[in-house]
Every structure is written in structure tokens, then in C-alpha cells.
């Protein structure tokens, strides 16, 4: 969707206006508690606000899209990083962000297993470059919230021995909280839940000095899309599923709010959007190939908002191409909450009114550039 179309839609749709008015009345009150101060130049939006390098290659996947070509991915990574920083040598690009003293977390996305996850070859290439910079495997952490998801993706065979693969919880059951920092949290009462806090993973607040965010191009039933912002926000805090309930979602404001919490905001210095495969409906999950599509793209940026602004169009265009309702559709007639099965079978069924404007909201918090006219996309074809 082009920006002009977006603005027109808001102006022309009374329902949208009504909903927006209600949003401001119902906006949750947030209390953010953290002892960490922002860096002089926070990682988000970083040194390249509004800049996205998009590297595309038809050869990065097999014709059927099931196999990844490691060599092509490596070339895409090298070209993308050099284009982002303007350096002639790939290693110099990485050195702009990392030093041998850093402890680096790689925030992967394993939720869309098996088909739409942070691809092991992209993660492996990221690790290889960090080690080129001078980091030891022990200084690198692949992390995600849930161990069972990480286990299914199984990054270990793709990375050097001694590297850390870390999950904050065994699975999405909210029974183990010890890996969350009690002193860094965002508090809000969304639906009268008793536990009103979402705490940051201790690894982020107490261990890593830098974070690389490696999300995927995914539809999301609550947020519209899940890209850089949601991956780093909802993937780094506890107790976040409480924001959507009975068709209503508070992701509009909570995604950006979480991404802004220090030290997460300051330490997240690089965004590598894995768009080799994507999912255009029923995301963030992709248990089958039914809704998987193949953008065959990797994007590079320091600005998560800019990438996600592009992602809104990528997912919405794909949905339109397939005859599915827009991610901007707020018609309650499409809603069949608490019926994931129906949603999975019918791409015109939603379980929640989506909140794609969470990207714009994040921009207002200073996390990046949302205005499509101000986003500069450098496209590279390999």
C-alpha cells in the first residue's frame, strides 16, 4: 500500500476514524521502570534512520522455495552490509557496529517454525562476521523466548561450538520467570489481568552489550505484521500475550513502548530482515506451506520502523494478490475471535482487529522513520 492510499483510507472510512478516536480514549497507561540510561546514540534508529538496503536474489532458494543456498545468502549479506554503511570491505561494515570486546545477542525468530524462522544460514553468516571482528563464540548469544521453538529450529549445527543458544522460558506457559529482570519492566493493565508487568530478559539487561535483530516477513493476527519492532519487543519481554483478548489488541502502543525500553533500545544496533520466505496469513506461525510465500529478500538497516513500514506493504500486497482482506481492515464482520482453526482455514477471517499502525506509533516514540516518502530504499539484485 502506498502512503497516499493509506491516508485516503483513514479519511474515507468512518469506522476507521471511530476506532482511532476510541483508541486514544482507551490507550493504556504505561509505567516503564528501568535503571538503564539511553546511550548517547541509541541503537534504534541508529546511524542510518530511514535507510533500508534490500537485497534480492532468485537463487537464494531452490525453485520450490524449500532449500536455502548458503553461498548466495553469504553474498547477499556481504553486499547488503556494505551498501548499508558505504564501506568497500564487508569487515569494515561490521566493525562499525561491533568491537572484539562486545557481547552480542542475536534475536532470532523461531515462532514460525519450520518454514518462516530466522534462517540458520543467515544466523551462521552473522556469527561468522562477528568472529571476523574478533568476538569469540562465548561472546555470542542466539536468543529467543521459548526453548521448545529453538529446539525445533536447531541452530547448533550451523554455528561454532561454544556459542550460546539461550531461551528465557521452556515454552509459552508462563511458569518460569527466573530469566527475566525484576527491575526492568513495562507495566500496564490491559484487560484486568492480575499480572500487569512485562519484564525484560536478564540476558539483555545484564549480559549483552549489543543486539542484532533477525526477524522475518510475517503476517500477524494482532499487529498486522510482525517484523523488526515486534520481534525485538515481544521477543524480549515476558507476559506479552495478554495484550490481545477477545478480538481486541493493545499492540498498537505496546510494541513500540517495549522496544523503547532501555537498554533494549540502545543496544539493538542492527536489523537484518530475513525475507527469504514469508507468511502472508495466519502468522506468526507457519506450520505448513499453505500461506508461505517467497520474497527471496534480505533487508539491512539500523532503523526498525523503516523496514517495518515497507513490510506493511509487502504483506498487504501479498494478501491482496491472494484475495485476502487487507491488514488494515477493521470490519468486525471478519472477526471470529477464539477460533484459530477458522482463521487458519480462511484468510478472510481474523481473530483480532489488527493494529498495523503500531509501526507509525513506534516512529512517534523516536524509533525510526515511518513516512514512506522519507524512507530511502537501496535495492540490489543478485
Amino acid at each position: 500500500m502506498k502512503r497516499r492510499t493509506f491516508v485516503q483510507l483513514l479519511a474515507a472510512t468512518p469506522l476507521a476514524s471511530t476506532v482511532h478516536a476510541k483508541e486514544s480514549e482507551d490507550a493504556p497507561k504505561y509505567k516503564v521502570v528501568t535503571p538503564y540510561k539511553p546511550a548517547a546514540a541509541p541503537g534504534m534508529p541508529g546511524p542510518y534512520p530511514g535507510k533500508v538496503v534490500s537485497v534480492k536474489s532468485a537463487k537464494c532458494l531452490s525453485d520450490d522455495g524449500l532449500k536455502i543456498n548458503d553461498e548466495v545468502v553469504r553474498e547477499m549479506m556481504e553486499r547488503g552490509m556494505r551498501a548499508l554503511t558505504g564501506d568497500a570491505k564487508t569487515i569494515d561494515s561490521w566493525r562499525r557496529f561491533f568491537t572484539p570486546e562486545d557481547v552480542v545477542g542475536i534475536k532470532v525468530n523461531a515462532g514460525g517454525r519450520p518454514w518462516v524462522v530466522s534462517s540458520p544460514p543467515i544466523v551462521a553468516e552473522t556469527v561468522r562476521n562477528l568472529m571476523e571482528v574478533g568476538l569469540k563464540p562465548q561472546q555470542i548469544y542466539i536468543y529467543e523466548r521459548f526453548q521448545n521453538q529453538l529446539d525445533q529450529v536447531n541452530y547448533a549445527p550451523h554455528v561454532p561450538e561454544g556459542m550460546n543458544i539461550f531461551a528465557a522460558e521452556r515454552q509459552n506457559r508462563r511458569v518460569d520467570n527466573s530469566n527475566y529482570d525484576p527491575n526492568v519492566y513495562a507495566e500496564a493493565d490491559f484487560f484486568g489481568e492480575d499480572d500487569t508487568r512485562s519484564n525484560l530478559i536478564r540476558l539483555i539487561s545484564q549480559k549483552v552489550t549489543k543486539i542484532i535483530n533477525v526477524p522475518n516477513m510475517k503476517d500477524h493476527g494482532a499487529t498486522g505484521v510482525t517484523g523488526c519492532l515486534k520481534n525485538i519487543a515481544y521477543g524480549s519481554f515476558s507476559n506479552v500475550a495478554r495484550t490481545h483478548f477477545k478480538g481486541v489488541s493493545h499492540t498498537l502502543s505496546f510494541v513500540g513502548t517495549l522496544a523503547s525500553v532501555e537498554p533494549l533500545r540502545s543496544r539493538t544496533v542492527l536489523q537484518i530482515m530475513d525475507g527469504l520466505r514469508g507468511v502472508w496469513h495466519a502468522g506468526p506461525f507457519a506450520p505448513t506451506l499453505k500461506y508461505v510465500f517467497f520474497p527471496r529478500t534480505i533487508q539491512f538497516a539500523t532503523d526498525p520502523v523503516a523496514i517495518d513500514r515497507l513490510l506493511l506493504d509487502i504483506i498487504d500486497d501479498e494478501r491482496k494478490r491472494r484475495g485476502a482482506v487487507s491488514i488494515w481492515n477493521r470490519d468486525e464482520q471478519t472477526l471470529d475471535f477464539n477460533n484459530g482453526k477458522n482463521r487458519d482455514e480462511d484468510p478472510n477471517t481474523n481473530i483480532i482487529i489488527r493494529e498495523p499502525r503500531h509501526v507509525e506509533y513506534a516512529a512517534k516514540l523516536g524509533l525510526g522513520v515511518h513516512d514512506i516518502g522519507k524512507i530511502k530504499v537501496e535495492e540490489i539484485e543478485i
Partner: protein
Amino acid sequence: MRSLALICVAALIALVAGAAFTADAQRAAEAAQRLPLIYWAGEIETAEGLKQAGIDQIAAPPDKAVEWRKAGFKVVAISQAELARREKLLVPRIAGRANVASATRRPWIDSNGWRFVRSPSGKFYYELPQGKAALAAAEAFAYGADAVLKIDPADLEEAGKMLAFLRGLPRENLPAIADIAVIDDGSLAMGEVLNLLTRRNLLFKLVPSPSPKFRVNLKLGTKQYPKSAAADPSEFAQKIRRQLGDENRSVRVYGTEVVICRLAGDGSRTRLHLLNYSGREADSLRVRLRGKYGQGVIKAFGIESAALEDFVTADGATEFSISKLGIYAVVDLPAMK
């Protein structure tokens, strides 16, 4: 003459009030010392099993009391009819699928705390399936209830361990702390409201009339709280919570929605009871108490290494984490001047 009459009336009121106070205080003191009783209808041949479980006091049918006493047990004789006259309690547990419940699909807890608060001099009994004896014992103890537990014999060892744990706790006789005053009309509707307040850790006290000492005074049938409002007790409890304000709550628990708290204190020290209804260990709870407290001590059933971690006082509140919580724990904290 008139002055003399007034003095006499005042003296009489003071005497009655004093007597009432003494009775309340005595009841509270007794409750503080009270351990729940295991009702044991087994034959005397089962005595060894009880002894091995460390249980030396039971409730038993009157016709068996003598031989149990001869066997060295302290026995409270309770007939079947007496047992039936006691108020039967729910089996304390999570009803439903707590494993998959999210925060916005709050698990349903069957708890009895509100019944104990409503009837402080009541007599209660539990009829418990296997696996619930220890939690029931802890629940009754936390509220100082006069409760008898009919347990599954397979739970004897666990029940014995819990009773030993309860017996080993430092004795306290502290008044309950509450944030909400409730004028109880004794109705079923109000009972369900009390139930929901308990389950959401909204601490209340039953009072005969509204009291300015409380931020919220709740009386059904008033303009502010019409009886129709309590038709949805869950929503009603939520309304009360919002009126009180989370920041003003004496206790909050984060990281779980299946732990119920009871708080008691006298301004110099405070005891927090934590009852975990989930049937499994809770991991890394965060507790917030309104007020400033010094580093406290936790005693947790079945977890010797329990400690209060990440202890902080800020913004008029005290917070700490509990790394592991089994069925029950008490935290004793001194108030900070």
C-alpha cells in the same frame, strides 16, 4: 444526675466494647495457634503410619477415640453428625486448564479464604482427593480456620510434612491487613464477590458499618454498588480493584495468577502468607508490598533454599522475588521506620 447517667452509659459501652475486643483478641490468638486436624477413621492398626508421618494429633470418631488415646495420640472426638454440621469446603485447586491459560484467560481457582474471613469462628471440613491434603492444611492455617481434613490415606506423609512445617513456624498473632471494607449482607451474591476479591488478592475486612479508614467501602444495595452490579462478580471485583487503584494495594504478586496472599501486620512487623493453588512449583514470583520493610525471612514448604531476592524499597513500597514457591510459604518482615 444527668452527668452521672451519661458516665454510667459510657462505662457500660466501654465494658461491652472491651469484652468484645477481648473475645476478638482471644479468638485471634487461638486461631494463630491452631493447626488443622486430620480426620482419621482408620483402625488402630494404622497408627504406625500416622506416627511415621509425624502426626500425633487427630480427629477421630468418638467410638475410636479411647483406643487412639491409648496409642499415644491426642484426639479430638468428632462424630459423623458433628462433621456433617461443619461447613464443607471446596477442594483447593485450579479448576480448568491452567497450563494453557494466558493472563487474559485467568485460571479459575477454587479457594476457601473468603469463607474463613466471613466466618472467623466457623467450623469447617474438607473432603479431599489424593494430592490436596497439604494445600488444604496450609490454606486453613493461613486463615487461622478451625478445619478438619478428611484426606486420602496416600497423602498421609505429605500432610504430616505440612503439619510439621506449620508447627515449626514462628507463632504470630497479627491482625489481618485489608484495603477494602465490606459490609457483608450475608447474601450469596456478596459471598461470590468476597470469593472474587480473595482470588484477586484484593484484601478486605468485614466491618459493621462504613469506615473512613478504608479507601473503598463496599455495601451491596447502595447507589454506588447496586445489587445488579454484582450479577457479574468478576467484573464487579474488577471495578473495586480500579476504585482502589493498584498502587494503593497492600500486596501485589507478579509472575503468576494462581497464588493467593493473606497479609497480617501490626505496624511493626508483617507476615505474608502465599498459597500456591497451581499444583506445581511457581518460579520467580515478584511480590510488592505497600510500605517500607526491612529484609525479611521466608520459610517455604518443601524448599529449604528459599530466599528473598532482588529486595528493593522504592516509591513507598517494598519488592522482592521468590525464586521457588511450592504449596505454601510465609514471609516475615520488619517494618522500617
